[in-house]
């Protein structure tokens, strides 16, 4: 049993308030700062009754649990409330789940990103449930005049064994609401979990399969108008002038104008990435009418001049410099190759790699590249906004509501408390909806036209006004001695505009002589996080390279990795290694066993790969055969160590999706540019994986663990690319270095 304080060194405070109707409402706040700010304190009494907490209990025993974080398909709307319900000790059938509003007074870190929702809220969610349960027990003890220690609970019922008394949570809810919040509560033992670790269905499942409104694009409001953007056709261009004479005359069109989402003088937040602050906007009565006017609108564009703006980001205030020019993928590739041939910025150096390479009997040097990728969430970017002089009301799909609330307030010149963001279910995120420029655009448009408006991106807007996965190039070198022993590894990598190199990850720590360097290329193309940023590429390069090194050493690729991990575990090199070698080896051993690695199957070609990122460990084996020279992936095995698995079947679903998603991006997808113009504009040009290309069978295995849970949205994705490349090598005798592997297919 773990005892936790309900106040974390003054950082936490709890508020209780009785609900009308005798229910009970608990509110928790885990503030990021050590104490609430003056502004927050001033707000408290006013907001007290408007706050929704994590849970409320009705007289009939029904429990409503607020799911604090945005739902993008990672299934937190089911799994986060499961954790609260576990500690509350209710029957899952009694639980109603609601999407919580954005409220940083109550909830901490309302972000969908970094695979951190479960990991960072684990304790908070458990404490929320346990605290309510404790108050219910205290209420029952007082009522029955027995010691609280004698009150037990099960499935939403309080029991006192000696007297034979019992009551439902609903019957005690009103009394419990009057109980002071306990200073300390006891959390369950992992072995006593009844809900966590059992599979529970998606709480929105019924609504999804019957087509109920759930998504931002589905949101409607009386008197709502439709807005669309016309953005520059090329990165490196900006708006010069608009000729709206035709467009204005078209049926259903209300207004045509230009906006500047982020004026140069505005300090942007960390997620205000936007290559096209100035653009044209058309507002009309219906989507189709606005789409037609979009085609008729004549806009002149002009080249941008180099510019800079302030960004208040992760590392404090920085100045971001944007170069001018019309960039092409070809010139990016040439520039990256040039930088790859020069020394980069040294990130880590262990031992004496220079001497090791000088004395090597064999040096293996390989280059790996990958293009920009568009996120292509199936629901295009959109947001509803209704801005009045009094307040800004925003509804829609956003991964970073906390951040965008600040951006909107800054842009509109409204105090923060006058900006309200409601989160809808998202038709996919994958990092794209971290960057909420479309939300600010909607707010600016609504403010200008003084009406409620829904901004909708067409697929073409979505694909060509993207925040792309950077393009990458990385070089791996290995030095082997005359006995084929590994002497040194050197990684040098970079990208447009970011480097994917994580210097302290494996194989750092497992090898005496190691050098990691990076470089970067400035660009005016907007890029950002894409499912497992950086890792999604470096894992494929590293794990493909190790496969080749193992072959040169004459070793089985799993055995070779296990030997390196053994070294990292028993005698690690350096102190900053950011992985647990035993857990890393654990997933490799598990996948080896489950895939019956080593037993050859005729006509089946297999590849293996393992990676650690976003706090979870994953190993994959892929099996494929060739049909007309093209790969068909028959089966995939996933071994995962993410600590405790909250909702196993949903976690398996996430793993299956990651495997499919990775196979698609590895084989087919790319976003290329010519003279600043994205060459793919819709799904006829941008190749996505489809039904017939997905593996028929994906086996997912979890390492049994009592360790606190870590995330799953991202870490399963990166290793798949290399498992595929390594299996392709077995099938074709050819190594695959450049993504996508089958660009023309």
């Amino acid at each position, binding site marked *: 049993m773990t005892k936790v304080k309900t106040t974390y060194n003054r950082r936490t405070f709890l508020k209780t308030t009785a609900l009308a109707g005798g229910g009970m409402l608990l509110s928790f706040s885990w503030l990021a700062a050590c104490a609430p700010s003056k502004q927050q304190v001033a707000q408290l009494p006013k907001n007290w009754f408007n706050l929704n907490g994590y849970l409320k209990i009705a007289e009939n025993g029904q429990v409503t649990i607020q799911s604090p974080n945005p739902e*993008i*398909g990672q299934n937190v709307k089911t799994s986060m409330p499961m954790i609260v319900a576990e500690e509350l000790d209710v029957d899952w059938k009694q639980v109603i789940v609601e999407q919580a509003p954005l409220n940083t007074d109550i909830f901490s870190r309302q972000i969908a990103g970094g695979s951190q929702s479960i990991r960072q809220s684990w304790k908070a969610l458990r404490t929320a449930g346990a605290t309510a349960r404790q108050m219910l027990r205290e209420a029952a003890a007082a009522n029955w005049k027995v010691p609280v220690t004698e009150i037990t609970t099960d499935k939403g019922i309080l029991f006192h064994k000696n007297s034979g008394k019992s009551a439902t949570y609903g019957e005690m809810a009103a009394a419990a609401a009057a109980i002071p919040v306990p200073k300390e509560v006891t959390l369950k033992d992992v072995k006593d979990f009844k809900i966590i670790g059992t599979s529970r*269905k998606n709480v929105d499942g*019924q609504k999804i*399969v019957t087509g109920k*409104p759930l*998504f931002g694009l589905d949101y409607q409001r009386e008197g709502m108008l439709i807005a669309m953007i016309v953005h520059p056709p090329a990165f490196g261009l900006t708006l010069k002038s608009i000729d709206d004479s035709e467009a204005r005359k078209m049926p259903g069109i209300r207004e045509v104008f230009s906006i500047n989402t982020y004026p140069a003088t505005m300090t942007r937040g960390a997620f205000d990435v936007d290559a096209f602050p100035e653009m044209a906007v058309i507002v009309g009565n219906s989507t189709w009418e606005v789409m037609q006017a979009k085609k008729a609108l004549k806009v002149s564009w002009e080249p941008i001049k180099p510019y800079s703006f302030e960004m208040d980001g992760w590392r404090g205030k920085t100045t971001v410099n944007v170069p001018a020019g019309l960039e092409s993928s070809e010139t990016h590739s040439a520039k990256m190759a040039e930088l790859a041939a020069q020394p980069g910025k040294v990130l880590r150096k262990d031992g004496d790699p220079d001497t090791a390479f000088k004395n090597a009997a064999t040096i293996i040097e390989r280059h790996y590249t990958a293009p920009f990728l568009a996120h292509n969430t199936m629901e295009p970017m959109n947001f509803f906004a209704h801005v009045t002089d009094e307040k800004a009301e925003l509804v829609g799909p956003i991964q970073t509501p906390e951040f965008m609330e600040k951006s909107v307030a800054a842009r509109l010149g409204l105090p923060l408390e006058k900006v309200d963001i409601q989160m809808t279910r998202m038709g*996919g995120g994958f990092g794209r909806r971290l960057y909420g420029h479309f939300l600010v655009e909607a707010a600016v448009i609504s403010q200008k036209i003084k009406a409620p408006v829904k901004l909708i991106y067409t697929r073409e807007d979505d694909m060509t006004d993207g925040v792309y996965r950077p393009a990458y190039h990385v070089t791996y070198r290995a030095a082997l001695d005359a006995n084929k022993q590994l002497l040194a590894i050197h990684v040098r990598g970079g990208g447009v505009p970011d480097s994917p190199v994580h210097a302290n990850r494996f194989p750092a720590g497992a090898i005496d002589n190691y050098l990691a360097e990076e470089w970067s290329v400035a660009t005016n193309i907007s890029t950002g996080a894409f499912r497992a940023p950086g890792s999604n590429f470096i894992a494929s390069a590293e794990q493909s390279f190790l496969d080749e090194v193992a072959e040169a050493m004459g070793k089985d690729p799993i055995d070779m990795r296990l030997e390196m991990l053994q070294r990292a575990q028993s005698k690690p090199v350096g102190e900053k290694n950011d992985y647990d070698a035993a857990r890393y080896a654990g997933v490799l051993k598990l996948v080896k066993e489950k895939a019956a690695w080593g037993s050859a199957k005729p006509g089946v070609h297999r590849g293996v790969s393992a990676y650690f990122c976003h706090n979870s460990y994953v190993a994959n084996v892929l099996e494929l055969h060739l049909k007309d020279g093209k790969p068909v992936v028959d089966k995939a095995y996933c071994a995962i160590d993410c600590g405790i698995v909250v909702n196993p079947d949903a976690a398996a679903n996430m793993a*299956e999706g990651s495997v499919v998603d990775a196979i698609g991006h590895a084989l087919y997808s790319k976003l290329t540019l010519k003279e600043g113009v994205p060459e793919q504009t*819709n799904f006829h040009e941008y190749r996505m994986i489809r039904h017939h290309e997905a593996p028929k069978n994906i086996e997912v295995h979890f390492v049994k663990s009592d360790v606190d849970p870590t995330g799953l949205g991202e870490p399963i994705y990166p290793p798949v690319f290399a498992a595929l490349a390594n299996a392709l090598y077995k099938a074709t005798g050819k190594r695959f270095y450049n993504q996508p592997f089958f660009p023309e297919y």
Partner: protein
Amino acid sequence: MAQFKLKINGQWREVDVDPATPLLWVLRDHLQMVGTKFGCGMAQCGACTVHLGKTATRSCVLPVSAVGDSPVTTIEGLSENGDHPLQKAWLEMDVPQCGYCQAGQIMSAAALLKSNPHPSDEEIDAAMMGNICRCGTYTRIKKAIKTAAAK
């Protein structure tokens, strides 16, 4: 603008719109039926799939003027109580991740099962390859279709 009488999910509905307006936007904007989704607008992703008669049709490229008397079925009308065998199988397999593509997936699968109650893997692939799922739920979708077909 022109008047159109459309038979949608068994009910006659009237709209006054530009004849070129795709059925998708008539459903979503004019009839407030938002279960049918917008994904690409050019018959490439399947998110907007409805049934025109018995045929799976991409409503994003179907002008309302071309609908005529053909009955239209949308996800909202696939079954009265959300209990079509495919909807039940979808829930049993817990298919959706983000869920956005799933109405279109179900409508494509429903048209397939209507014409071919026991499809092979290859037939499922052929009928479903026009429906993209960015979340990668294809493997589960196939299992759900087979589950429904078995019932």
